[in-house]
């Protein structure tokens, strides 16, 4: 057999080489065949990661360079992905669901860890198929402060949180927090907080295999009149900032046993036109400027809390005032780069693009659309990796 094979190969080779020789001889300059290769890494620099979740196929996670909005590459996942960059920005966590027959059959839910530089998979961790199959949004896939654990929000529809040990590559705990939703990691790596339907915020603190749940004063927020978005960002002073449907920022201290409301800041007070936030990831924060950026729409009404933006508001948490209002249509998710000259990125619901906004007027601190790319398709959340 092996003899026959090598004879066969020789014949093919002679034929190929003969043809080539003939061709090359006629060419004026010698033809050098090109090589088919694979790029080993993406280009260096900060990225924006767009979660192109699919409900009946592979979710596509798109990586763009922040400066040029150049397409760096992608990773693929299963159904209804959630994404989260690691603390050091070098890895990307992706939660998604794999069904044996794509839209039915046994479900395998997995957290996959990708190396951003090479866009290759470093680890896959199977988690219980209780993980929420939800639209991409903050608070459903999170990590603890020192990035040793990954948290997964469950909904069956009863709610709980799965705790994954990243190093061990396995689930180490599951916490029932019924009636609560969203994971807000504390500065204490053994702790996270969550929003509850009673209007309370609860903190879960781990102690080895056990955990303890402490509850804020009930009615910290009013679920009917001023519901909170499931999104919290920690500010420079260590407080959680949680935006509400009506445009209030709830400043919450989660350092004690039970969370406490420190202050409620209205970013719309004194502004005409009944403006309110809208979208799936309505707010982003730039630490160096201590400034939040919020997707806003006018003429708000009950039910408009997911309506896309008309403007992006830049609000100084330090000065407690609006710094600028930039026209920005159709965005439902917002991410801002860090540093003193931020770039904004948004998920455009209407055009199904990722949009890039850069500083147009440094003095007025206003932004205009500088780039856009339609390879993302429809997305509802995105993140910067640094």
């Amino acid at each position, binding site marked *: 057999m092996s003899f026959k094979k090598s004879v066969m190969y020789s014949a093919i080779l002679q034929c190929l080489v003969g043809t080539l020789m003939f061709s090359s001889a006629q060419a004026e300059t010698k033809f050098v065949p090109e090589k088919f290769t694979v790029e080993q890494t993406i280009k260096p620099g900060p990225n924006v990661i767009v979660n192109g979740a699919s*409900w*009946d*196929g592979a979710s596509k996670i798109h990586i763009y360079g922040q400066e040029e909005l150049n397409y760096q590459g992608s990773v693929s996942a299963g*159904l*209804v992905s959630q994404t989260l960059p690691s603390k050091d920005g070098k890895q990307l966590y992706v939660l998604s*669901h794999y*069904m044996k027959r*794509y*839209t*039915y*059959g046994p*479900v395998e839910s997995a957290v996959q860890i990708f190396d951003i530089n090479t866009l290759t998979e470093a680890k896959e961790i199977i988690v*219980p198929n*209780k993980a*929420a*199959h*939800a*639209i991409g*949004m903050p608070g459903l896939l999170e990590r603890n402060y020192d990035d040793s654990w990954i948290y997964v*929000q469950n*909904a*069956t*529809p*009863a*709610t*709980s949180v799965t705790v994954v040990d990243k190093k061990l590559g396995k689930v180490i*705990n*599951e*916490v*029932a927090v*019924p*009636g*609560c*939703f*969203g994971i807000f990691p504390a500065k204490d790596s053994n702790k996270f907080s*969550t*929003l*509850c*339907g009673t209007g309370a915020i609860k903190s879960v603190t781990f102690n080895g*295999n*056990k*955990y*303890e*749940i402490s509850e804020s004063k009930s009615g910290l927020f009013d*679920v*009917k*009149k001023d*519901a*909170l*978005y*499931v999104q919290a960002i920690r500010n420079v002073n260590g407080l959680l900032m949680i935006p509400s449907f009506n445009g209030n920022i709830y400043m919450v201290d989660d350092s004690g046993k039970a969370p406490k409301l420190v202050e409620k800041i209205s970013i719309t007070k004194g502004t005409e036109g009944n403006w309110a936030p809208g979208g*799936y990831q309505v707010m982003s924060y730039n630490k160096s400027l201590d400034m939040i950026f919020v997707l806003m729409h006018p003429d708000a*009404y*009950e*039910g*408009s*809390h*997911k*309506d896309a933006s008309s403007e992006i508001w830049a609000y100084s948490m330090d000065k407690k005032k609006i710094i600028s209002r930039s026209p920005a249509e159709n965005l439902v998710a917002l991410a801002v780069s860090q540093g003193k000259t931020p770039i904004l990125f948004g998920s455009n619901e209407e055009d199904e693009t990722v949009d890039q906004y850069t500083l147009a007027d440094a003095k007025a601190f206003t932004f205009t659309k500088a780039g856009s790319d339609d390879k993302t398709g429809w997305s509802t959340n995105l993140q910067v990796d640094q």
Partner: protein
Amino acid sequence: MRNLIDQMFALFDKRTESMSRNMAHNHGRRSFLAKAGAAVIGSAMLPLLPFEQAGRAYASEEEENPMDPNSCSYWRYCAIDGNLCSDCGGTLTSCPPGAEASKVSWVGTCHNPSDGKDYLVSYNDCCGRAMCNGTYCLKSERERPGYQMGLHNDINWCMANTSQGYHCTVAVLIGLAEGA
């Protein structure tokens, strides 16, 4: 309404049992059940909020017609998020053949302009098929995040089924709203 009760009981029977089995922590089954019950069932019974503004259809350029079930502005769709089953081989209240009925649902409170009453609308997903490409509608009147799960429309309500793929959504009248 029997339907809703059955569904919710089915949910608790199946899911919390299995969930509890998987938890070996310092929280009792009873307190868990009680709280989950309060959150999921309680939320479906929320009193009407004090506003009655019309929601917006996803495709805002379309003709608004609150009496047309083929339009996203149909009154029943005040908190819908999904592809209409009626455009996918099913009807306003039934799944297309071969799809599976969702065991759980979210609930909206919608105002019927023809009789001036407010109705509880159960938005059930049909499951186990690829997402139908039929008319997609999104409205979020009185919709709330996952901490009020029974009102939440950003999640796949096939979550409690064996076949969990999302196919399409129906809008079933299950009750008159409290105070209607």
